[in-house]
C-alpha cells in the first residue's frame, strides 16, 4: 500500500516536471520565437493589417465594420448610411458578457438552422431592405438579383468582404447619394475586386473598407 502511494507520487512528480519543461519549450520559447520573427519580417500583418485614410487609422483591412448613421432617439438598431457601400449582416455577434469593463470587438454566427423560422424572417427582411435601399430612380432592383451573401450573416460576423454581385448592386445607389457618375463608381468597384487566388482558391470578393476608403477619396476630389 505504502509502496504504491510512493510510486504514484513519483510518477505524478515526473508528469509535473515533464509538463513544466514542455511548457517552457512550447508555451514560452516557441511563441516568443514566432513573435520575434513575425514582428521583424511582417510587422504590419502581425499587428492586424491596419489601413489609414487621411493619415488616420480607420480599421483593419481584415475586419468588417458597420457603416451606419448615428442612432436616432428611440431607435434600437441604427439605419445604414447609404452613402457608403454596406457589408454583410452580422446577427450573431452577441454581447460583452464577462469582463464587461471592456467593449471588445466580438465574433460569432447566428447558428440558426436552415429550417428555422427566425432565420427565414431575417433573410426575407434583409432582402426587402436591400431591394428598397438600392432601388434608385432609373434603376430598380429585382429580388432575384440579390445575392446570398447580402442577406445572410457570416461565420465570424466580421466578414470584411462582399461578393462582386452585391457590390455591383449598390453602385447606382452609391453614385446617386454621392453625386458621382455611375461609370466612375463601377470602375472603382472593378478596381477593388479580388479574383480567386491563383484562379481557383476561394471566391471573388470586394473588400468593403478598402472600397469605401477609396470612395471617400473620390468624393473629396470631386
Amino acid at each position, binding site marked *: 500500500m505504502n509502496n504504491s502511494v510512493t510510486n504514484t507520487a513519483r510518477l505524478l512528480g515526473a508528469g509535473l516536471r515533464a*509538463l513544466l*519543461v514542455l511548457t517552457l519549450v512550447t508555451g514560452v520559447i516557441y511563441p516568443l520565437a514566432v513573435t520575434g520573427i513575425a514582428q521583424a519580417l511582417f510587422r504590419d500583418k502581425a499587428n492586424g493589417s491596419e489601413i489609414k485614410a487621411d493619415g*488616420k487609422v480607420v480599421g483593419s483591412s481584415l475586419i468588417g465594420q458597420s457603416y451606419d448613421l448615428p442612432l436616432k432617439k428611440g431607435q434600437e438598431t441604427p439605419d445604414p448610411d447609404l452613402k457608403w457601400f454596406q457589408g454583410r449582416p452580422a446577427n450573431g455577434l452577441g454581447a460583452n458578457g464577462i469582463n464587461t469593463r471592456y467593449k471588445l470587438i466580438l465574433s460569432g454566427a447566428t447558428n440558426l438552422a436552415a429550417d428555422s423560422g427566425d432565420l427565414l424572417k431575417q433573410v426575407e427582411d434583409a432582402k426587402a431592405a436591400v431591394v428598397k435601399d438600392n432601388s434608385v430612380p432609373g434603376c430598380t432592383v429585382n429580388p432575384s438579383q440579390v445575392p446570398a451573401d447580402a442577406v445572410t450573416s457570416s461565420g465570424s460576423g466580421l466578414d470584411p468582404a462582399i461578393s462582386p454581385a452585391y457590390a455591383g448592386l449598390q453602385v447606382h445607389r452609391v453614385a446617386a447619394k454621392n453625386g458621382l457618375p455611375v461609370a466612375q463608381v463601377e470602375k472603382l468597384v472593378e478596381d477593388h475586386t479580388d479574383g480567386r487566388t491563383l484562379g*481557383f482558391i476561394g471566391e471573388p470578393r470586394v473588400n468593403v473598407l478598402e472600397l469605401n476608403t477609396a470612395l471617400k477619396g473620390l468624393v473629396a476630389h470631386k
Partner: protein
Amino acid sequence: MGPVSAGVLQLIALVGALALVYIPLGDHMARVYSSPKHLRVEKWIYKGIGADPDTEMTWPAYLRGILAFSAVGVLFLYLLQRLQGVLPGSLGFSSVNPAQSFNTAVSFVTNTNWQSYYGEQTMGHVVQTAGLAVQNFVSAAVGMAVAVALVRGFARSRTGELGNFWSDLVRGTLRILVPLAAIAAVVLVACGVIQNFSGIHEVGRFMGGSQQWNGGAVASQEAIKELGTNGGGYFNANSAHPFENPTPFTNLFEVFLILVIPFALTRTFGVLVGSVRQGYAILATMFTIWLGFTALMMWTEFAHHGPALQAAGGAMEGKEVRFGVGGSSIFAVATTLTSTGAVDSFHSSFTGLGGGITMLSMMLGEIAPGGTGSGLYGILIMAVIAVFIAGLMVGRTPEYLGKKIGGREMKLAACYILITPALVLVFTAASMALSTPPHSMLNSGAHGFSEVLYAFTSAANNNGSAFAGLNANTDWYNTTTGLAMLLGRFLPMVFVLALAGSLAGQKPVPVTAGTLRTEKPLFTGLLVGAILIITGLTYFPALALGPLAEGLA
C-alpha cells in the same frame, strides 16, 4: 470558372499537396520513433523529468505514464484559469468559474478543444499561450505515442515491451510538432494572421469613433491547433475569424495542416511494421471515406435545401465570402473526420444533410484520417474487427500483420468501439429526458435535438466542434461533456495499449495461402464496409431523429 469547379480544383490541389509530403513526412516520423539516438536538448529534458528514455515499458507502465502526465495537465490548466484574475499578462481578465475551468482543462488535455467559453473575452495571454497552446502540442504528442505503441505491438514479438512513453512524448513534440508548427505559423503571419502580445487597445473606425481589439499570439496557436488536430480557437468564431484565417489560401493551408500528420502516419505505420503496402491499404481506406464525404458535403451545400437557404439563394449563412461554399465544405469535412473541431463556417447553419454529414463523420470514430495519432490507432482497431469478420466468413482464425486475433484481442477491440457510442447515446438521452437541459437548445424540433446529439458526439469523440446554438455553458453541460471527453479519450487508450501488449507478446504466425492479404484492395473494401456498417447500425436511430428528419423534411 464557377464556384463548383473552383471547389473541385481546391480539393485536387489539396490532394496533390498531401501526396507530395506523404513519404518524406511519414518516413521522418518513423525515424523519430525508432532512432536510438537522443538529441542533446532531449537529454537535458530527460534529466529534468528524471526519467531514463531507454527503459522499455510494458503496457501498464506506458499507460500509467500517460495517465499521470494527463492528470497533472488537467490540474495545471484548471489552476491556471482559476488564478487568471491575479496572474500578470492576463489583460486584466477575471478568473474563470470552476465548472467552466474543469470543462476547458479536460477539453484541451483530451485533444477535444470543446469551448464553452467565449475566447476573446475570457482568456488572457498567459492562459492562451502557456496553458491552452501547450496542451495543443502535448495532447497531440500523447495521441501519436499511443498510436506508435500499438504499431510496436504489431511489429514486435515475444516481448511485453512497447517503448518508453517519456521518450515518445518528448520526441513527438520536439522533432515533429514544434518544427512543423513554427514553419506553419510564419506562413500564417505572412498572410495576415496576427502575432503580438499587445494589450486591449483602441483602433479607429471608418465612420469615426473606435473599436476595441485584443492582440494575441494567434498565429503560433493557430498552427498547432490545426496540426495537432486540436481545434480550440483563439477567438469565438474560430477559423472563421479573419485574424485566424484571413485569406482563401490560409483556409486551404489550414485544411492541409489538419490532414497532413494523420494521413502521413499510415506511412510511418507501414515502415515500422516492415511493409509500406500495409500502410497504403489503410491510407486508401481513409482516403476513400474522406473523399466520398467531401463530395457529398459539396453536393448538399451547393444544392442549399432548407427554407431559409432557398430564400437567400445560397447556403451562405454562417459562411465567409472569401471561402465560399466550396472552401467551407472542404474544411467542415476535414475538421470532423479528424478530431480537430476547428470551424471556418458554422455547421449549425449548414443544410440539414450537411449538418448530418459532419455528425456522421465524427461518429465513424474520427478515423478518416482521424486525429493526430488517434486516427491511426482508431482505424487499426477497425482493421482488427474487419479481419475478424472476414475470419468468421471463411471459418479461419483471423490474423492481422502476422498476429492472431483471438478472444482476448477481440474483447479489447469490441470494448474500444462500444465506449463512444455508449457515452454519446446515454448522455444525449439523459439530456433530453431531464427537465432543464433541453432549455439550452437555440433551435426547436429536429434541429434542437441535433444540437444536443452533436454536443455529445463531439465531446465523446474528442472533436470539439459544435452546433453552437446550444448554450453549453451550464453546470449540466460543462460537467457531462467534461466526463464524456475524459472517458472518451482515456478508456479507449486503455484498451488500445492492452491490445498492443497482448499482440507484442505473441509469436508471429507465418503467412500461408489461407492468410487474408490485408495489403490488397479487397481488404480496403472490406474495411470501408465494416466501418460504415458498424457506425450506421449504432447511430441510425439517433440520426433519423435529428439531421435526417430535418434534411428530408
